[in-house]
């Protein structure tokens, strides 16, 4: 194993820890808060809007700061997606994700963090999510063969 891979793995572990704390502090690991945010009308809870308002500017600064550099610190190349195509799978997939998000109140990160905390509904949500991912992989392979 290369030294670089170890560095990346250790950094990723720390980033995962910080990410989990951010999700839990922000309220994203409480599905009733997510649902309260998505349910417009009486009793609407706008607080989760501020998660994005807190996160995006911080990331915008680091992205601006790194742009134009030849590589990140622990790798020889960037892995930031470059695709600009607006495709059907992009929009249909996002729509399906929205449907599932509104049904359960979990998105992938809070699902995993809640699983770590031993939260019962995450124990159902996360394995189902992995199966769903596997199903799409099978489906897209089938489409590609045609």
């Amino acid at each position, binding site marked *: 194993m290369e030294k670089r891979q170890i560095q990346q793995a250790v950094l990723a572990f720390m980033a995962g820890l910080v990410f989990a704390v951010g999700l*839990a502090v922000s309220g994203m690991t*409480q599905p009733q808060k997510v649902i309260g945010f998505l349910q417009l009308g009486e009793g609407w809870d706008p607080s989760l809007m501020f998660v994005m308002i807190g996160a995006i500017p911080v990331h915008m600064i680091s992205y601006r700061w790194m742009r134009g550099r030849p590589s*990140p610190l622990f790798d020889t190349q960037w892995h930031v997606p470059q695709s600009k195509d607006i495709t059907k799978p992009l929009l249909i997939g996002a729509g399906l994700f929205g449907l599932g998000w509104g049904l359960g109140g979990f*998105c992938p990160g809070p*699902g995993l963090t809640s699983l770590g905390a031993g939260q019962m509904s995450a124990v159902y949500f996360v394995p189902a999510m992995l199966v769903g991912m596997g199903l799409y992989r099978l489906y897209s392979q089938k489409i590609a063969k045609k």
Partner: protein
Amino acid sequence: MMNSILMALSGGALIGFAASLMLVFNGRVTGISGIVNGLLGGLFKDGLWRLTFILGLLVGGALLGMSHPELFVNTSGRSVVLVTLAGLIVGFGTVMGSGCTSGHGVCGIARFSVRSLLATATFMIIGILTATVLKYWLGV
């Protein structure tokens, strides 16, 4: 409410910071669905950092779950069947749409990616429609 907003802002800033660490050091986008999906493709090719990131999420959840269990209370009243169905759809949809709230909603928008902006608008609108319909038609 004010307290909720401050918690959301500071939690959001931590999320942005974690995503910045991943970008500056590893050159990666912090998209949770993408990181997990990459693992399903095989652990040994490009998998160690994915595994440790997810381990970080799980360990972070475990530690906080012990110190602050109130952050992980689910009083949504959504049944096991509904949550399982939601999991299936979220898994399928996030891989199909190449991202979720983190990859599109935070990292993508921060780079002004039109793709991510459209994806985020789509899942927000459908999420709002779904949750609001459930509230007014089914009362949950």
